[in-house]
């Protein structure tokens, strides 16, 4: 592990701070009956889709298309996750299916 213990504590504290800011801020900013600014409302509607896209890319940041397994196990497993989810729309099933598929692929074939 490259971080020292105090660096880890600071990192976790930052995550706690960020989470608490997003949860408490509305109650601090709008204690009365004030209307939320339109721009903030707009961000609230569009930001989630973009952020989850960003997180998918974040998860795949260490995949190399031109070396190693060329991202094939990732591509196959993501396709399975999407397929399972479109079929059954059961979140846990899709996650478990994709993960098991990936584990089998990297442990046996790649």
């Amino acid at each position, binding site marked *: 592990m490259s971080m020292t213990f105090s660096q880890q504590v600071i*990192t976790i504290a930052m995550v706690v701070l960020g989470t608490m800011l997003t949860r408490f801020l509305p109650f601090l900013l709008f204690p009365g009956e004030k209307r939320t600014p339109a721009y903030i409302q*707009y961000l609230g509607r569009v930001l989630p*889709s973009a952020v989850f896209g960003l997180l998918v890319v974040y998860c795949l940041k260490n995949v190399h298309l031109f070396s190693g397994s060329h991202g094939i196990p990732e591509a196959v497993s993501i396709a399975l996750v999407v397929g399972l989810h479109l079929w059954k729309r059961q979140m846990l099933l899709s996650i478990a299916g994709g993960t098991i598929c990936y584990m089998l692929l990297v442990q046996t074939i790649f």
Partner: protein
Amino acid sequence: MVQLERKKIKKAFQAAFPHTIPIFTGFWFLGMTYGVYMHVCGFSFWYPMVMSLVIFAGSVEFVAANLLLGAFNPLQALTLTLMINARHLFYGISMLEKFRGMGWKKFYLIFGMCDESFSINYTAEIPSDVDKGWFMFFVTLLNHFYWFFGATLGGVLGALVQFNTEGLDFVMTAMFVVIFLEQWLKETKHTSALLGLFLPTVCLVLFGAENFMLPAMAALLAALTLLRTHIEKGGASS
């Protein structure tokens, strides 16, 4: 008086518990996976135990594990958390009214307002003879407990059970793919979702795996701000 209060609390608990049963399954599964994942990443069970208690925001905790493995960068940790959890701002805005006058419980209700607690507390039709404050308190507390218990158990079991965990880290990818897909299916216009895949990929190529997140977040905010008229014209997402 004390007996009456106790009866009120018991009644609220009995009303709240059934609402949390679906979350129970999900949080155990994901919490345990998170605990095992932390073990695979090289952390003892103390980490998932403490993190599940003090953060209580599932997706961020998986990301936090990755942050802890990378280079020390508190600003990125804060910004990334703010971006991932930005949706909580809107939960808060929706709950301004419902949490009013909840006294000391309000602090905990806001602290523990994860996606699942929010959606139950926001939508549940609380019977008029059940105390609303205690009902929402128990929904939040039970969910928090399921997650904490699952994460801790996963952390402990991860160390005890010996099996080949190679590739288990894919659980985080699978989870975000599913959430992304859920968003996609709910919205009519996919501009934001597509930007969310495209701009970070460009930044990844330009800046590399260690440094692309901050520029990617900045690019997304800028693009969404610039394209606001375009996106809002065609009917907003969800």
